[in-house]
């Protein structure tokens, strides 16, 4: 070896190679000097290349070889005990699958809810606010335009408002959901129509000036059979032919979490879809919900500050309509005006629940692996004593765990894929509206699931692995020689794992119990009107082309006909039915003798109702009278206020006979109605009032019918009576008020379903874990039990001994779980309705279930213990 090549070798970083060559060369030289044959001496050293690899790349090559070996070995081990493997894989599949499903829901509903919409991370939801009032409001069109004009940090303002249309088919009115949008809508969200165009600038101005529509891919396929010449044809929407200018791409469903929209119209068509009430120039009418796309690099705080400043200026410029009004931005996942906001706490809870289930599953698999690790104790001991590294053993056990969890993850993704549409299935349908609450299994969800899978492996495989590698060789070999199964002292680890399982499943059960109670409370809660014995539907005369005069006559005649029917107690029209997803009218109000704080503008929502409405829906009058047919367009303007409003503006002193100013018109108060719920069961009371439908007319109206009959029984009669008046008019979906109310409690129902399902799963998994520990304990103490039996203990003593140990574990687990639940259940927030988060009966029920499950899990090992054959056991 020359100096030169040694130098080059050193520079190349091959110093070691050169040295190995030189050392082996020296070895051969010594051997030859000792009289050996040069060729033989060389052969004895083996391939020089091999040394090079083992010397230099030893770590990488060996590591890879070990991995392959471990994988094959792991696979063999799993195949050898199929019962163990399938139980472990099943546990993990359920755990990982549940996690992947919830991740996919969070991704598809909260984080990236709108397929094809570009850069959703810069998209934020916009709502209005009222100073001094909780919650959010919509935004008026003039305010929206002013915000747009004066902001510098925002790329685009996208206005939209969910709406519906009747597509009449035969004598059935089919509803389709759609959206009124600003003209920039498709450009701003980056969605290019599949056919035709989006809306053009200016198409959102002028009253009903641009009857054009973009239809969804599905509507194009279903109603027009994919007609390639669809552009330029017309579709009647709300009674007015609209020219179809575009077809949206296949995977675009609009920008409203929960629904798949079927058509879009420009905002200029607002009046057509709002029963003729024109709002584009009315700064007082708030109806826009929308989004802004912030400029690159702008934070939500900066944008919020700018919009608040603009809102403050509008407040100064238009005190009559804008006093106290603000603007608020929300991240998409907190959007308050669609189902994102409603599902947020449910999905948050679901995430906690599935992580707990996964922990429980991991504890179970960890326990199973421990049992097996002890069974393989001998194998491990021998391998250690012949020189296998401890790290090597740990690696092998972790690899085996990884094989398990990769298999489980594959199964889990299949489970998650099945569960993708589970939320939509749990959500009650509104007639004809396409629900869309999809899970999205994209790369982020896959990455999260992979992370969970690896974390789970470390959790369940590492503990047994470390325990095993800490085998005390001397002790192990000694006890092995004595023929006694070792590792008695380590059962505490397994007991600790069972404790974790029992306490976690206890917490989940308490949560499930609380939600069930809450659900019960919601079911029993009075909405303030009769949920039973009242049906609701809609009769849209506006769309059917009626002018107000004809519509009034039609409505009166229909009420007369219905009330003449046997079985119908009363019937009444109103513009809105309670608990609808549409918005009530709202207006700034003024009251004699009531001075609002200078920076606030009292505003209240109201419903336009027909004669006998309150009696029909079952809202009692506190004083005064209901509206009659005399409260019509020729009579004096009248109003009925609710108790909340009476208390706030007249401090409860008989408002009947006083007056209230609504949109500049003074109205005589003729009655006070008991306060009811208007949007949903959970709302906080807000002032609310009623005005006569006749004096604030809407030809598109809801119809309430008080009857003991079921919807199915009365629907044909209703259609017959309507057709007797006009064969071209069809009623909307006819449902009970009960159902109307329950449609607003979907998120509670979803939360209950998820918690009950996973709580049950958790208890089963925990019971399996407890069974495993008890069975192992019994089989390990066979000698002790045999001795006791031989010395005269009877079976009840043994039974008591084994059950006692199992129940003691359970009791500690329940105590720990109780402590944890005590601290955490209040996080369920608004999902709990009229139930204390520390409700004792939920805790009691959870305890009972856990204890019963524990008993079931302990009975078999205990029974086996009593059947120990003392002679057999002691001799063995």
């Amino acid at each position: 070896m020359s100096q030169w090549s040694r130098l080059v070798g050193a520079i190349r970083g091959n110093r070691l190679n050169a040295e190995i060559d030189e050392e082996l060369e020296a070895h051969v030289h010594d051997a030859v000097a000792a009289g050996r044959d040069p060729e033989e001496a060389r052969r004895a050293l083996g391939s020089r290349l091999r040394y090079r690899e083992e010397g230099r790349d030893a770590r990488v090559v060996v590591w890879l070889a070990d991995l392959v070996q471990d994988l094959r070995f792991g696979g063999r081990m799993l195949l050898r005990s199929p019962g163990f493997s399938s139980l472990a894989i099943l546990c993990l599949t359920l755990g990982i699958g549940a996690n992947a499903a919830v991740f996919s829901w969070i991704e598809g509903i909260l984080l990236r809810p709108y397929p094809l919409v570009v850069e959703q991370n810069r998209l934020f939801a916009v709502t209005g606010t009222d100073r001094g009032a909780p919650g959010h409001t919509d935004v008026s069109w003039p305010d929206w335009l002013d915000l747009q004009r004066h902001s510098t940090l925002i790329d685009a303002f996208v206005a939209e408002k969910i709406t519906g249309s009747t597509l009449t088919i035969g004598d059935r009115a089919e509803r389709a959901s759609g959206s009124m949008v600003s003209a920039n809508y498709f450009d701003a969200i980056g969605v290019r129509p599949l056919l035709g165009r989006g809306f053009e600038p200016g198409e959102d101005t002028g009253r009903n000036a641009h009857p054009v529509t973009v239809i969804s891919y599905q509507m194009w396929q279903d109603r027009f059979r994919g007609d390639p010449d669809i552009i330029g044809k017309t579709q009647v929407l709300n009674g007015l032919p609209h020219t179809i200018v575009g077809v949206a791409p296949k995977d675009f469903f609009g920008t409203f979490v929960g629904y798949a929209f079927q058509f879009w119209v420009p905002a200029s068509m607002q009046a057509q879809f709002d029963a003729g009430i024109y709002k584009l120039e009315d700064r007082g009418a708030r109806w826009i919900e929308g989004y802004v796309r912030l400029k690159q690099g702008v934070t939500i705080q900066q944008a919020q500050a700018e919009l608040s400043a603009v809102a403050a200026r509008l407040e100064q410029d238009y005190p009559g309509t804008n006093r106290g009004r603000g603007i608020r931005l929300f991240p998409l996942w907190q959007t308050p005006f669609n189902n994102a906001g409603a599902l947020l706490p449910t999905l948050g809870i679901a995430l906690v629940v599935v992580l707990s289930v996964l922990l429980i599953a991991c504890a179970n698999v960890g326990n199973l692996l421990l049992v097996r690790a002890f069974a393989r104790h001998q194998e491990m001991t021998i391998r250690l004593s012949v020189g296998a590294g401890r790290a090597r053993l740990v690696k092998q056990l972790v690899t085996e765990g990884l094989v398990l969890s990769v298999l489980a993850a594959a199964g889990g993704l299949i489970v998650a894929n099945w569960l993708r549409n589970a939320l939509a299935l749990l959500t009650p349908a509104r007639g004809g509206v396409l629900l869309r609450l999809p899970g999205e299994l994209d790369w982020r969800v896959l990455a999260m699931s992979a992370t969970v899978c690896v974390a789970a492996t470390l959790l369940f495989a590492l503990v047994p692995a470390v325990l095993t590698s800490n085998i005390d060789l001397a002790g192990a070999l000694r006890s092995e020689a004595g023929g006694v199964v070792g590792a008695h002292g380590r059962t505490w680890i397994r007991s600790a794992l069972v404790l974790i399982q029992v306490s976690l499943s206890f917490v989940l059960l308490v949560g499930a119990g609380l939600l069930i109670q809450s659900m019960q409370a919601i079911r029993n809660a009075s909405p303030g009107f009769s949920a039973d014995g009242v049906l609701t539907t809609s009769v849209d005369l506006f769309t059917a082309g009626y002018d107000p005069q004809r519509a009034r006559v039609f409505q009166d005649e229909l009420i007369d006909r219905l009330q003449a029917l046997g079985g119908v107690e009363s019937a009444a029209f109103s513009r809105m039915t309670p608990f609808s997803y549409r918005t009530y009218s709202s207006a700034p109000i003024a009251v004699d003798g009531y001075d609002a704080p200078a920076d606030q503008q009292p505003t209240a929502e109201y419903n336009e109702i027909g004669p006998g409405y309150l009696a029909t829906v079952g809202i009692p009058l506190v004083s005064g009278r209901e509206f009659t047919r005399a409260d019509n367009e020729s009579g004096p303007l009248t109003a009925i206020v609710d108790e909340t409003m009476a208390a706030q503006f007249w401090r409860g002193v008989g408002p009947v006979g006083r007056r209230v100013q609504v949109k500049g018109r003074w109205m005589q108060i003729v009655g006070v109605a008991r306060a009811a719920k208007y949007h949903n069961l959970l709302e906080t009371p807000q002032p609310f009032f009623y005005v006569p439908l006749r004096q604030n007319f809407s030809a598109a109206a809801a119809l309430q019918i008080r009857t003991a009959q079921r919807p199915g029984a009365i629907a044909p009669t209703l259609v017959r009576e309507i057709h007797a008046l006009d064969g071209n008019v069809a009623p909307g979906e006819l449902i009970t008020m009960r159902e109307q109310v329950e449609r607003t409690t979907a998120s509670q129902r979803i939360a209950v379903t998820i918690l009950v399902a996973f709580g049950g799963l958790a208890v089963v998994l925990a019971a399996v874990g407890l069974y495993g520990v008890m069975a192992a304990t019994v089989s390990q103490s066979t000698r002790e039990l045999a001795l006791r039996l031989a010395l005269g203990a009877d079976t009840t003593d043994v039974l008591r001994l084994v059950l006692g140990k199992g129940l003691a574990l359970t009791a500690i687990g329940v105590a720990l779980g109780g402590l944890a639940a005590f601290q955490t259940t209040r996080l369920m927030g608004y999902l709990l309705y009229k139930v204390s988060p520390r409700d004792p009966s939920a805790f009691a029920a959870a305890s009972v279930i856990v204890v019963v499950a524990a008993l079931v899990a302990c009975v078999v090992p205990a029974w086996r213990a009593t059947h120990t054959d003392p002679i057999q056991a002691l001799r063995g």
Partner: protein
Amino acid sequence: MARTDSLQGTLDLLVLKTLSRRPGLHGYALVAAIHDLSRDALRVEEGSLYPALYRMEEAGWIRAAWTTKDTGRRARVYDLTPAGRKQLAAAESRWQILTAAVNRVLRTA
């Protein structure tokens, strides 16, 4: 880490022990020394020796240095490190336990 060839621990043990008695041996001398010390009973596989040496050097149990022999050739000689001494003690006691156990089995079975 180490491959799990059976009795690989044995080779390590032999090398460490020999080096602890006779420091500064090169590879060929190690083979010869083990042969001598075992009264010709043990012949170390030369093919396994060098990988074992490199591995133990990697693990920090032994260290190597180049010296020049009388013949003018360079030789790589090996010495125990403190970590190597500790490893030797552990391996020795492990060996004792194993052989004792095996002996017990042989006696009683």
